[in-house]
């Protein structure tokens, strides 16, 4: 995809999904580098500020601070933040709420590694051309 690795922050409270995302991204070799993991929205905001990743993958249902709030906080800090929501909440209302909060993409579970990399590639291309 690109000679420059994209730095990813994974925000996810479910242990299996954190593991799965890391495995899927690491399997892509030189394209992505997981630079941080957050288990709730509050941690996500803190880690975003500290790490300034290229892309954030964001769960929505989390304790302490949910994904929608975290997206708003991150975008308040950095309007250029690129956020891909990955959620099992599959109705259009949730997608719309996430996009209104500032998400750049929305990936519904279940998904395959191809669905994930297609979404990430789309975001990378869109944000390179802006």
């Amino acid at each position, binding site marked *: 995809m690109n000679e420059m690795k994209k730095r990813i922050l994974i925000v996810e409270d479910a242990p299996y999904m954190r593991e*799965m995302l890391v495995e899927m991204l690491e399997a892509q070799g030189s394209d992505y580098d997981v630079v941080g993991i957050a288990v709730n929205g509050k941690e996500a905001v803190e880690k975003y500020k500290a790490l300034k990743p290229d892309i954030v993958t964001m769960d929505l249902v989390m304790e302490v601070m949910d994904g929608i709030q975290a997206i708003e906080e991150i975008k308040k800090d950095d309007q250029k933040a690129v956020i891909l929501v990955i959620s099992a909440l599959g109705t259009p209302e949730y997608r719309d709420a996430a996009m209104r909060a500032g998400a750049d993409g929305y990936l519904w579970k279940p998904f395959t590694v191809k669905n994930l990399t297609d979404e990430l590639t789309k975001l990378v291309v869109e944000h390179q051309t802006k």
Partner: protein
Amino acid sequence: MSAEVGFEEILRALRRSRVRTEILMYLYKIYPRASYPAEISRNTGIDSTNILGGLRGMSSRFDESSSLLNQGIVERVERGDVTYYRLSERGKALVESLQKG
């Protein structure tokens, strides 16, 4: 009804249930291994009662006809006194059908 239409209907039903979707995704991750409700609960962060509801249905909260077992996405494996659940071939094909989309 073709398999593809069947999958679309199942996916539409899944979109309405976060619990069933998380269970499906977890069992896809560990496929072909089977798991039991407490382990699924620990890994997804969803309580065991809701996990059982998603797997088997629960009259008051989870429609039995949309349960993962009823839809043939998950199958039951009895080992001694413990009931395990694993993704069926149909369940695996369902997730992998998403490669095309």
